């Protein structure tokens, strides 16, 4: 089938290998992948800031560009939640209300698409390492993504998954929160990294690069050896 890839702005500019991994995975499964260059951002930073009017400007472009019937897959819980859950609210009582609902029904977070829509858990991957998994809050609580990444990781050859304590605690990124309240964001990140470090894992995996960006920033500053990696990158390994 034809799959539309929605690549979040920070994946595009900072972590392109996440997007590349997703492309490789879908193409290996025999699907055609499309990427709409016209879209840069889903608008979440503005939405979270309270600038809903300005967000509609960006989001309208997304609605128009992604019109159609193909599924839209997003390798990020926060951006997927923005389009799937918040676009309908953003466009309520506007002429685009129906378009927003229609798009919402076709949007999926990456791991949820693989497991729930395609029914696939085994991608023939191999990643020989001990890893632990961080559940990004938007994916977890807005989209109810919890089991799917674990079902996928279970099938990765030579990978050992160790769950950390407080696995559902927020990492502290929260978008602009990370820079508006940096002391709180850092404290939350420190607690989270400590839980991850306690597992003795070599890699900290997540389905959201924004969380990983924040945690990696802290880990690097502390000269920790623990490396962060996106779920798609693990699954694309062989």
């Amino acid at each position, binding site marked *: 089938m034809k799959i539309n890839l929605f*690549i979040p702005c*920070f*994946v*595009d*500019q*900072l*972590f*392109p290998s996440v*997007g*590349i991994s997703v492309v490789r995975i879908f193409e290996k499964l025999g699907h055609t992948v499309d*990427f709409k*260059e*016209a*879209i*840069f*951002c889903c608008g979440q*930073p*503005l*939405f*979270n*800031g*309270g*600038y*809903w009017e*300005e*967000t509609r*400007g*960006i989001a309208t*472009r997304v609605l128009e560009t992604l019109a159609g019937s193909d599924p839209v897959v997003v390798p990020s819980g926060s951006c997927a939640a923005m389009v799937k859950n918040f676009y309908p609210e953003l466009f309520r009582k506007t002429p685009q209300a129906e378009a927003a609902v229609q798009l919402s029904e076709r949007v999926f977070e990456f791991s949820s698409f693989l497991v729930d829509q395609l029914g696939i858990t085994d991608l023939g991957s191999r990643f020989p390492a001990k890893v632990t998994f961080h559940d990004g*809050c938007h994916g*977890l*609580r*807005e989209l109810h993504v919890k089991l799917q990444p674990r079902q996928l990781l279970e099938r990765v050859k030579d990978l050992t998954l160790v769950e950390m304590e407080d696995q*559902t*605690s*927020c990492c*502290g*990124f*929260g*978008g602009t*929160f*990370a*820079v*508006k*309240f*940096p*002391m*709180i964001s*850092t*404290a*939350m*990140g420190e*607690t989270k990294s400590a839980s991850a470090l306690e597992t003795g894992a070599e890699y900290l995996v997540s389905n959201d690069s924004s969380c990983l*960006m*924040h945690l*990696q*920033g*802290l880990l*690097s*500053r502390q000269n920790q050896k623990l490396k962060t990696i996106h779920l798609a990158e693990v699954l694309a390994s062989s």
Partner: protein
Amino acid sequence: MLSSLAAKFKNSSTKFTADLGHRAKIRTALKSYEKARNGTQSQYQDWQAARTAASTIKWEAINHLDAYLTEFVEKLTARGTKVFWASNGQEARDYVVALAKEKGARSIIKSKSMTSEEIHLNEALRQAGYEVVESDLGEYIVQLREEAPYHLVFPAMHLTRHEISDLFQEKLHTPPTDSPEELTMIARRALRMKYLEADIGISGANFGIAETGMISITENEGNARLTTALPKVHVALMGIEKVIPKLADLALFLPMLATAGTGQQITCYNSLIGGPRQPDETDGPEEFHLILLDNQRTQLLADAEQRDALHCIRCGACLNVCPIYRNVGGHTYATTYQGPIGSVITPHLRGLMDWKHLSYASSLCGACTETCPVKIDLHHHLLHNRRNAVAQQPDPAERFAFRAFAFLTRFPGLLNRLARLSRHFMPLTNAARSFLPPPVKGWVASRDLPPIAAKSFRDYWRTR
């Protein structure tokens, strides 16, 4: 520009997040709560169905509030209760002070009531010359320390036994001890006579039952029972939103309040009071006054989008799971209602512009919404408050920056090229750390910046 309250919040946050000892203390306290709660909650046959039902009952009550309040008051008045409707804190305070004067009261004993904190009742009574003693152990402790409660349900959560021992030594002249049991006994002894001598007992109310005209009080210590049994006059303070339709609704709310609030199956004492003593009863107050408080609750009621915030049963669970609360502590909020529920409702009760910062101080993780026993859409309401604040008075610099960004997103190719160019300046950011604008500065203070990729995803896509 930050309001002064927002600036204070930031300063307090900075102080508390740096205090690793405080972080450890709160973490230990909340871990024990989490363990108890998970154990108790897992005993339910269907906790999620119970939440839905509790939410539905509250929806029914709040969305027909005039009818249920009327029924509630009718039933209470029919059996001798004096009901006073207070539009705001001042009217409620004036009523209590006038009552104390009329009764020639000298000593007043109180059981826990967040509503009384909200209207600063103790302060008003003290200024009018009346001695007011808090009987709940945690409230008694913070009253002696002359500070606000640290948590909705656990007022002294931030204190160690040693700090409490020192406090009692200083204020009560008791010998030092590090035994929680001995400290509790000290408080028990100190308060015993106060119960017996008080002229007026003031309590709160967790629920008001419309069907039978009763208030319900949930506690563990027994201090509310004593406060409402011994003095000749009992005054209860209750927010108008606390009313629920039927007595049997408590079969759901009492255990859920306990489970979410403390992890207990049900608290030690759950009492229903339907009026002053009846002619065939051998003791009890001769007068029962119930003060119904609005104090901007009707403002929140008028906001249909956020009306469900009035479903709150004040269990404190949202505070317990909130990572922000865990790191900044209760006092940082600097207002009666703390944590997620406090952040949602305080703008409605005390002004959006002054209190919007609480709605921004959140990563929107949603743990609060997930834990709320009555399914208030807490973290989404933080977003609603942010939107309302921007609509009312946007920060011009921030709006300009966001508008510029929105404009630039129409030209992804341009942004892409700018990003590639900025890579050359990255090494400078480390050196220029102290000169960077606040957003970036905030990041690099504790975190390394993520490297901008040499080739972006769209570069890859173009050339494959």
